[in-house]
């Protein structure tokens, strides 16, 4: 039966704000991290199975596609983590409410959103530089 009830206004009527980017990225990284959960499970099952199974897993992780995916997973995890912390703070009412969407009342609203994106990228690069240094230094 077709729904004859009026629809609420959708995306098109809103002026763009940084929380739209945060919300979209939060959901996309969350979906991608669900795939990462399968990789974690694969790794654990491979470790529990045999050396041969582990080497198949390790070869995938070390391949080109594996490394690109792992880099994207690292960023997804760190963005989801940083943005999730802001979600938790807002759930507790910190900087939340109509006044906090107003530049005059809350000048950091936009910069906080962009800072979360920037910090997650910086942390991702930092993690991978540390990993590469560890490999280069032969510590492992």
């Amino acid at each position, binding site marked *: 039966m077709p729904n004859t009830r009026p629809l609420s206004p959708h995306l098109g009527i809103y002026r763009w704000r940084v929380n739209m980017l945060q919300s979209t990225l939060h959901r996309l990284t969350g979906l991608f991290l669900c795939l990462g959960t399968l990789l*974690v499970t694969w790794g654990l099952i491979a470790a529990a199975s045999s050396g041969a199974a582990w080497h198949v897993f390790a070869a995938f992780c070390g391949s080109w596609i594996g490394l690109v995916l792992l880099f994207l997973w690292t960023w997804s995890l760190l963005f989801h983590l940083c943005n999730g912390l802001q979600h938790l703070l807002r759930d507790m009412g910190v900087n939340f409410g109509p006044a906090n969407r107003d530049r005059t009342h809350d000048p950091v609203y936009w910069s906080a959103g962009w800072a979360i994106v920037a910090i997650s990228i910086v942390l991702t690069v930092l993690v991978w530089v540390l990993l590469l240094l560890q490999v280069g230094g032969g510590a492992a």
Partner: protein
Amino acid sequence: MSVYPGQEGLRNPLKVARGLGSSRSGVRPWWLQRVTAVALVPLSIWFLFLMGGVLHADYPMVLAAIAQPVHAIFLIVFVVCLFWHGALGLQVVIEDYVHTRWLETTLQIALRFGALLGALAAVMAVLAVWLTGAAYYCAH
């Protein structure tokens, strides 16, 4: 007095509205999503460090890392929270985007079975490595 949809004769509007609406399972999934999120903040940071440690480890070193009791217990808590949090997130995504009733119900049920299966498999794998490792060290 306006007439509510479904209202007939002298029936109280509250009687008509009861059993409809959005409050089917209440706030519990929302709350569990926050609880698992808080748990995953330290656990995922710990997991990143663990991954950095076993990045270039060979198979016996990986087994030894997983079989450490503290690592094994944290890994079990981590994968349980991971699958739970992921399932709650995917549940909301399905609720938001899948509007065909039979398909939505099918996906929601499949999601629950899949998440339970994945979490069980991951926990069993950790337990297998942990306990066989303990047996190995007892024998040697």
